[in-house]
């Protein structure tokens, strides 16, 4: 579904941050992306959610070669990708409901349809009582769940999460991970970047390990947490 071949990435005239990256994400797969700080995780995620074009190499999204795609064709592909940012990136002046509704409104969904979907999803992530709260009044875990709800409201083909548990406590990390696994079971290809090795072991999914700009794939183990 997504494949990278000999991908290199540098900003401006600087050194390559990613070198000869090659991997593929099959449909409905779940991967962790791990690596020390500065290894290039965020850059790789930016390539995955189409914030940047690679400096070199072949990238294929949903059967389409990125190099041959016109800029005007990219919004359609981006709508198939849900992104959860480490710092949530919610609109502070909008309520939780309005934040989550944005991707649907972008696609021109009808008001009633938007209301049904958003309410259902916010209930699913346990925020049925916080729908009309603004981000400033939400806790870190609540904000992250709003961000996740916004990322998945469109039922994306690919979900990219950057350190989704970085700003929440252990209990909330576990709950969020349950959410990702549940989503993946419903068919969403998922890649989660994290520093949290315990979290990685708890799920037992394959690991893409980035070190010094190069990537390697480690097979998944047996989940430690039976609930995951």
């Amino acid at each position: 579904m997504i494949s990278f071949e000999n991908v290199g990435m540098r900003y401006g005239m600087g050194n390559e941050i990613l070198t000869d990256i090659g991997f593929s994400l099959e449909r409905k797969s779940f991967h962790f992306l791990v690596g020390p700080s500065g290894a290039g995780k965020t850059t790789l995620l930016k390539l995955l959610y189409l914030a940047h074009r690679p400096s070199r190499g072949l990238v294929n999204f949903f059967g389409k070669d990125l190099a041959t795609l016109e800029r005007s064709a990219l919004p359609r592909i981006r709508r198939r990708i849900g992104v959860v940012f480490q710092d949530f990136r919610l609109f502070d002046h909008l309520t939780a409901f309005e934040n989550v509704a944005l991707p649907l409104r972008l696609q021109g969904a009808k008001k009633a349809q938007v209301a049904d979907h958003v309410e259902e999803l916010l209930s699913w992530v346990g925020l049925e009582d916080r729908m009309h709260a603004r981000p400033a009044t939400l806790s870190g875990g609540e904000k992250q769940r709003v961000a996740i709800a916004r990322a998945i409201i469109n039922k994306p083909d690919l979900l990219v999460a950057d350190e989704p548990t970085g700003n929440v406590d252990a209990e909330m990390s576990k709950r969020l991970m349950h959410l990702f696994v549940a989503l993946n079971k419903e068919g969403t290809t998922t890649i989660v970047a994290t520093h949290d090795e315990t979290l990685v072991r708890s799920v037992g999914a394959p690991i893409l390990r980035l070190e010094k700009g190069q990537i390697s794939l480690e097979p998944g183990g047996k989940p430690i947490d039976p609930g995951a």
Partner: protein
Amino acid sequence: MWGRTLQFLPEKSLREGLLPWVIGVMLFLCTLSLAGALAIGKGIENWSLGLTSNFSVQIVVKDADERQRQTTAALRLLRATPGIENAKTLADAEIMALLAPWLGDMPISSELPIPTLIEVNLSETATVDTIALAERLVATAPGAQLDDHQAWMSQILELATVVQLLLAGVVIMVVLSTVAIVIFGCRAGLATHQESIEIMHLMGAEDKTISKAFDARYLAHGLKGGFLGVLLAASVLWLLTDLAESMGQGLIHAGLPEASSLLWLSVLPLTASLLTMLTARITVRKALLELM
């Protein structure tokens, strides 16, 4: 162009708060300059209309008998010319009154030879070839000199044209300054909302969807500022009209706002808001092209 707008920008932005006021000031200056240019144009038109409907003929001959003979011949020719409604000689007393500012109160019986002055009025719709008429007059009465005011009227018209061009230059500069201010304002707005724009972009919003949010915002700024500026300018113009009327008919009077003039005033805020919106749209679209 006016499709559904997905407004993701916060309602208020401090950096954009001054923009309607600046647009208001620009529109104020623009309106006054335009009104000035139009007033001068209209004034000159009315004034020259009055002057071209009449002219004068002088019979400059020293000998009184010969002057009288040439005057009679000239009057006959003028009255027979199509388009001339009437031609009459001014009485000596009237001529002396006209000359009084230069010669003082001189007795009419003075030895100073005073030319005969014939005042000629044209029919309302008539046009007379004054050059050909002057030639025929000289053939009939060699001492005749036709004065249709062209010599000094053309200088006044030239001056008025220069002033109008200057005012048009002011309008163009004000419009360009407004565009520049909107570009700066829009860039400041873009910087303020950079993160929101990026998120929308990554969610799959098309450039036009994002720029529409700015379109609506800047259209509103343009309308607010535009109406403010034009209302202020209209008030000033009304005051000037009152002043001009109290001073009597003058060059500046004719073009100042009458009821019909208010129509073009109302077009200005709409034009300003469209200009503001289009400037913002182009600025935003150009900035968005920098994103992948």
